[in-house]
């Protein structure tokens, strides 16, 4: 069992503290690939995003994705934190950290986790517009579904 931390929370997260926790006391980790997803203001039109999620399933589904990443790459640690609730432009939404002995595994696992989080973890984003009009639910992108394809080719 490698160190694994999965959290779904409304509070912000401290990427540096999470990274430090992953490497604390370790001398076998040679590579940490990380990803932070942030809320963009869409050229000033966005006031905030409201992130809805499926409690219970979100954590379980992220764990299933992390299980698969650990099967595919020799990881030494995985952290995934995904926020829910109201998030304003410039704020952090999601953090993925993957530690490994070498960089290729760390990078691939981090990209894999992000690709599957996007299209498989039960989160939905609703826009609140800066002009006060009713926002829309963000539509899923074909490109995100297509991003999953490459991993099935690799499998």
């Amino acid at each position: 069992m490698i160190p694994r931390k999965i959290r779904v929370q409304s509070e912000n997260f401290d990427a540096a503290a999470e990274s430090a926790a992953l490497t604390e006391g370790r001398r076998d980790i040679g590579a940490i690939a990380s990803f932070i997803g942030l809320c963009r203001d869409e050229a000033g039109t966005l006031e905030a995003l409201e992130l809805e999620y499926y409690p219970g399933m979100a954590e379980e589904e992220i764990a299933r994705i992390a299980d698969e990443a650990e099967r595919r790459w020799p990881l030494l640690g995985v952290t995934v934190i995904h926020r829910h609730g109201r998030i304003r432009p410039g704020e952090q939404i999601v953090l993925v950290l993957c530690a490994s002995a070498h960089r290729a595994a760390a990078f691939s696992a981090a990209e894999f986790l992000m690709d599957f989080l996007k299209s498989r973890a039960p989160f939905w984003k609703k826009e609140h517009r800066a002009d006060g009009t009713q926002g829309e639910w963000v539509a899923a992108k074909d490109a995100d579904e297509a991003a999953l394809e490459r991993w099935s080719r690799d499998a």
Partner: protein
Amino acid sequence: MRLVYFASLRERIGKSEEELDLPDSLRTIGELIDWLAARDEFYAAAFAKGIARAAINKKHVKPEALIAGAREIAFFPPMTGG
């Protein structure tokens, strides 16, 4: 059966969860979707265009999945996390 709804489906149906007695004749998720969509115009709108995805007991399933043994069935649009 406990049914839960999220995001645009929740808004269209007007509730986030409900307990429903399902006819014994319903075997699959696809059949359940058709049955729900026939209830009224709000359910019909929620399940229109085939965008609904489903989970049984908090695991993704396909329309052909059997609902026998389910404790909780969830419906939601394509996910937009990350």
